[in-house]
C-alpha cells in the first residue's frame, strides 16, 4: 500500500526558530514535492525534487529550503520561521515518466507564534 508519512501532524514554533519538516515515502518514487495549503489559495508548490540531491524551486520558495540526501526522504526547512508561514504543509511523491499520480501525506499544521 502506498504510504507517505510526515514527521508531525501539529507543530507550534516561535518566530525566528529554525523548523524542520520531514517527509518519508516507501514507494521508491523519484519525484517528491512540498506544498503549503491556505484557505482560498489552494495548494501552492514550494519546492520539488526529481532525484537525490536535486531540487527545483516551485512557485513560492522564498523563506524555505529543502534537502534530499536519500531517495525516500525529503525535508523542508524554514530557516527563520515567521508568522506568515503559519499554514498546512503537505508532502507528496510520485514516480517519474508515467501517468501515475502524486500521493500525499497527511499534512503538518504549523503554527508560528
Amino acid at each position, binding site marked *: 500500500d502506498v504510504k507517505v508519512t510526515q514527521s508531525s501532524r501539529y507543530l507550534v514554533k516561535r518566530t525566528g526558530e529554525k523548523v524542520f519538516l520531514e517527509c518519508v515515502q516507501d514507494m521508491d518514487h523519484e519525484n517528491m514535492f512540498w506544498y503549503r495549503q491556505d484557505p482560498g489559495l*489552494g495548494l501552492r508548490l514550494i519546492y520539488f525534487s526529481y532525484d537525490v540531491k536535486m531540487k527545483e524551486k516551485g512557485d513560492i520558495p522564498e523563506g524555505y529550503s529543502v534537502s534530499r540526501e536519500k531517495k525516500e526522504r525529503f525535508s523542508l526547512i524554514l530557516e527563520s520561521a515567521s508568522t506568515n508561514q503559519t499554514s498546512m504543509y503537505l508532502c507528496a511523491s510520485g514516480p517519474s515518466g508515467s501517468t501515475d*499520480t502524486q500521493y500525499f501525506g*497527511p499534512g503538518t499544521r504549523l503554527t508560528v507564534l
Partner: protein
Amino acid sequence: QKEVEQDPGPLSVPEGAIVSLNCTYSNSAFQYFMWYRQYSRKGPELLMYTYSSGNKEDGRFTAQVDKSSKYISLFIRDSQPSDSATYLCAMSYYSSASKIIFGSGTRLSIRP
C-alpha cells in the same frame, strides 16, 4: 489571473442529488486533468484522472474535459454524506506525476 479557477463554495446538497463541480483554466498546454478529494485534516487523494478531452466514469463519479472551452467538470451521482469533502481540480503539462497546478478547492456538504 490564476491559471486554474475553481468556485470555493461551500456547496450543500441533499443526499441522493447529482453534484456538479467545475473548474476553468487559462493555459491550453495542460494535458492531464485530475480531481482530488480531501477530507478534513487529511491529505488530498486522487479521485479521477483523465488525459486530454473526453469523459471518464468510475462508479458514481464522472469526469469531463472540454479542452476547446478550457473547462473541466466532476459529476457525482447518488451523492452520499460520505462524499462531504473538499474537491480539488488539478492539471499538468506532462505526466500527472510532474508539477501539478491545483485549483483552490470546492467544499461540498451532503445533507442526510
